[in-house]
């Protein structure tokens, strides 16, 4: 049960991260390595906040 919850959490964050990296790639004009690194970091932050936000919004119900 614990493993399943962890897997779900990791999956949610990864899905958000992938979606936000794609968003970043759409926003920028030219793609190179540093852009990937910065975009991946920003998307990681966004994914963590997305999960935290969803949990905060539903947890009190």
């Amino acid at each position: 049960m614990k493993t399943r919850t962890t897997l779900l959490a990791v999956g949610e964050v990864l899905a958000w991260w992938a979606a936000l990296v794609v968003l970043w790639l759409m926003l920028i004009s030219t793609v190179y390595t540093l852009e990937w690194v910065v975009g991946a970091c920003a998307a990681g932050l966004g994914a963590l906040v997305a999960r935290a936000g969803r949990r905060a919004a539903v947890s009190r119900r």
Partner: protein
Amino acid sequence: MNGWILAATVVLAVGLGTTLWGVATGPLGRRVVAQNLSTALVCPGLLLLSQGYSRTAYVDLALLLALLGPVGTLVFVRLLADELGDNPPQAWGPTWVAAGVGTVVVAVLCAVTGPGRAMVKLLVIGALLVGGNLLASRALSGGFPGVSRD
């Protein structure tokens, strides 16, 4: 003066003119609707301007407006809930017109841009704009049951 700037001038003149008239006069409900429509109409204008000046970087302005404009309307929906609660404003005609203008402008610009990442960016802006404004409009008109103030 190229056609894009001319189109932008028309959109901005009509959009800002009507929303200014709507937001400055009349009951509170109509004013909030006009505020919502101002973002829905200015954003296509900014997109047309970016095409008219052929500066792709100006698209960022439209992106920010498409993101934050509906958020601003939701602020008013939330904090004016008491005043708006009695007779929620219904304005589906103007809302759909504004959404139509946004869709047409984004579609035309996409056709001009051609396939690529720039086109996807335009589509993202269009989706945020139209989705956000329709949602803000529905939240305004009390289309969601059970909304209460905190």
